[in-house]
């Protein structure tokens, strides 16, 4: 039987899954991947801005998690622990990249406006749902941010960490975190201008 053909119900319970991982049961590792990898991969993609690099981060993270599951003491949920491993691994990979200095003004001048055709119209009348096209547009805009701004923005605004938590993850002050998030938002406002302005007009019309 191939590892991807297993019955996920074997380790439906998190405690049982942990026990299986501690026994180095391959089925438990497979269950871990099936249950958590999609979410962790998305986190890695958002932090790295590149699907292939994200896959490398995911692989390294899951292997580390399985190898060091004995160090997991259950003070947090398993998913939270894995989230942190992926975040740390991604940040380590990003630090290995050559540092890039970014002139915000130059970035803004260089950025060409997105074609109007990319403005999402598929979400009307239900604005609770984001269209696939719009999601890809946001993905691209986030991926185009400089590493330092993208990681701050993703951890704080997308992953929902507090300012204190995100700053601690990145090893910077809370003030620096806030400034990076502001800068990222400024660049995203420009990159997503057609949609942001359309959204603003709709909000005004609703008011």
């Amino acid at each position, binding site marked *: 039987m191939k*590892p991807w053909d297993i019955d996920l119900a074997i380790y439906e319970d998190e405690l049982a899954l942990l026990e299986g991982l501690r026994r180095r049961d391959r089925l438990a590792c497979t269950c871990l991947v099936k249950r958590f990898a999609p979410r962790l991969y998305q986190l890695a993609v958002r932090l790295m801005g590149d699907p292939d690099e994200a896959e490398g981060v995911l692989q390294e993270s899951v292997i580390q998690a399985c190898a060091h599951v004995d160090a997991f003491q259950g003070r947090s949920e398993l998913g939270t622990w894995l989230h942190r491993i992926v975040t740390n691994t991604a940040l380590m990979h990003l630090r290995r990249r050559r540092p890039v200095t970014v002139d915000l003004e130059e970035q803004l001048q260089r950025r060409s*406006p997105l074609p109007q055709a990319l403005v999402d119209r598929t979400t009307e009348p239900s604005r609770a749902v984001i269209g*696939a096209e719009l999601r890809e547009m946001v993905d691209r805009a986030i991926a185009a941010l400089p590493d330092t701004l993208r990681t701050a923005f993703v951890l704080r605004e997308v992953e929902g960490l507090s300012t204190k938590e995100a700053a601690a993850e990145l090893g910077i002050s809370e003030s620096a975190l806030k400034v990076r998030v502001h800068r990222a938002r400024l660049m995203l406002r420009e990159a997503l201008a057609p949609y942001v302005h359309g959204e603003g007009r709709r909000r005004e019309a609703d008011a």
Partner: protein
Amino acid sequence: MRGEHLDAACRSWLELAAQAREADDRDERLAQLIAEHLAACPDCAASEAALTSLIQRYRDAAQPPLSEQRERRLLDLLCGPASASLASRPQPDR
């Protein structure tokens, strides 16, 4: 037109943001300056609100699944002999 707003009225603010360094004292000052600007500038406030709404929807949106190919590569690596070869370190709980 809102699309031209950032190139005109807020240029000085953008330049400050672009030139700012990340020493703690300057960060604090800059963060305060940005917050004050967003509170006082209706155009920026509107754009920020729209962006917040968009990001909220993006956060809540279902993400595309991990491709089968990537999942299989991960499982092959995890369940094969290569799994023991990567350097690793313990991770603290959060």
